[in-house]
């Protein structure tokens, strides 16, 4: 059975390591915060200027001066520090963030990522995504394996405008986990009951 959204977050949480500084994107990546293993020391960075992001607030704790990069109200922790946007992206671009988990529209077999723009549709902007994929040490993508019509989203070459070139290290889809390796994508793990034949049929990228 293919993985659910929450399964994807749980599996993506396996990427976390003790002592990591991590930036989580909007959507499924945000759910990864619910799966940080007990006892593991992970610090979440929010690119609007916060290191050490806590859970959503109680209704009584809501503070308009305290939001995450998705503009949701959030809380601080004992370890929290605040900084301006230039310093925030110095952390990101400067390679100080260990891991970024973010969503994607398409990924190519060389690790190119497209997740910000569909030509002809209204473009909302790339926000911090281009800086994240260019700067963080490891970039993991969570996404649906195909679009709603069943078309492959793991491609030989992205058709959409890129967010970054050769920047993705691992892809976690509802069908399996894939690593970007020389020559194409390697199947690390398939979701329970998902066969290699099904993955091959739903993937355009070269599988090695």
């Amino acid at each position, binding site marked *: 059975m293919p993985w659910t959204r929450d399964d994807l977050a749980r599996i993506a949480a396996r990427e976390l390591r003790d002592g990591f500084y991590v930036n989580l994107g909007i959507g499924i990546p945000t759910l990864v915060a619910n799966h940080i293993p007990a006892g593991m020391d992970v610090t979440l960075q929010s690119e609007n200027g916060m290191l050490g992001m806590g859970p959503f607030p109680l209704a009584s704790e809501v503070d308009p001066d305290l939001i995450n990069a998705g503009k949701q109200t959030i809380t601080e922790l004992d370890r929290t520090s605040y900084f301006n946007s230039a310093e925030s992206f110095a952390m990101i671009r400067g390679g100080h963030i260990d891991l970024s988990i973010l969503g994607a529209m398409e990924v190519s077999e060389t690790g190119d990522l497209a997740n910000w723009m569909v030509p002809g549709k209204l473009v*909302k*902007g790339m926000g911090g995504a281009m800086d994240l994929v260019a700067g963080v040490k490891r970039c993991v993508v969570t996404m649906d394996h195909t679009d709603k019509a069943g078309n492959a989203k793991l491609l030989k070459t992205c058709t959409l405008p890129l967010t970054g070139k050769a920047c993705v290290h691992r892809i976690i889809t509802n069908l399996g986990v894939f690593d970007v390796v020389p020559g194409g994508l390697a199947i690390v793990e398939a979701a329970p009951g998902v066969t290699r034949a099904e993955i091959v049929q739903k993937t355009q990228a070269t599988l090695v």
Partner: protein
Amino acid sequence: MTKIYPDAAAALDGVLFDGMTIMSGGFGLCGIPEKLIAAIVASGVKNLTVISNNAGVDDFGLGLLLQTRQIRKMISSYVGENDTFERQYLAKELELEFNPQGTLAERIRAGGAGIPGFYTKTGVGTLIAEGKEHKEFDGQTYILERGLVADLSIVKAWKGDAQGNLVFRKTARNFNPMMATAGRMTVAEVEALVPVGTLDGDTVHTPGIFVKRIIAGANYEKRIEKRTVRESA
């Protein structure tokens, strides 16, 4: 010479002109200079180029300046929450330049620091890199991005004093400190204007040299864009 002005309209007197470039602080609706934006709306100044990470929502923040069609061009990283913006952009009434968020922040930081350009790896191999100088350093490709300055920067801080020293609060800091450095004229609005000597010099985020005029705002709306709460355990 005092930097303190009685209100937003007075602080912007003689500063505004049609076709000018304005930097406006904030991330989403967090830390936006809501009093100064309202005064710019009331002034009727038009054909503005506005540099701001976001474009507000339809009826608050920079969305108010979009509704009155005072903005000609936006330089932003993300404009997703605004129907007025979408309508004007699709009707080609509004020009839009997207910058990656970190590139935008660094362009402003550089502009304020007298640095006309810098190389970054952000956007290499994407549409953002088209037409820009590429250069190799230590085997990696980078693109040249230009520093940004503005005719006017409007920023919002938590506390400030008559010297123009500013202290920001939590994630309301965001783009405000860099923008304060990159305006030929910088006007700050603060929630609390405190006596000189009250702020600890070690904790001042923006030194007063960058701030030319300052006002104390009152009755801040500080609207929340996405109120997200958890149930108590």
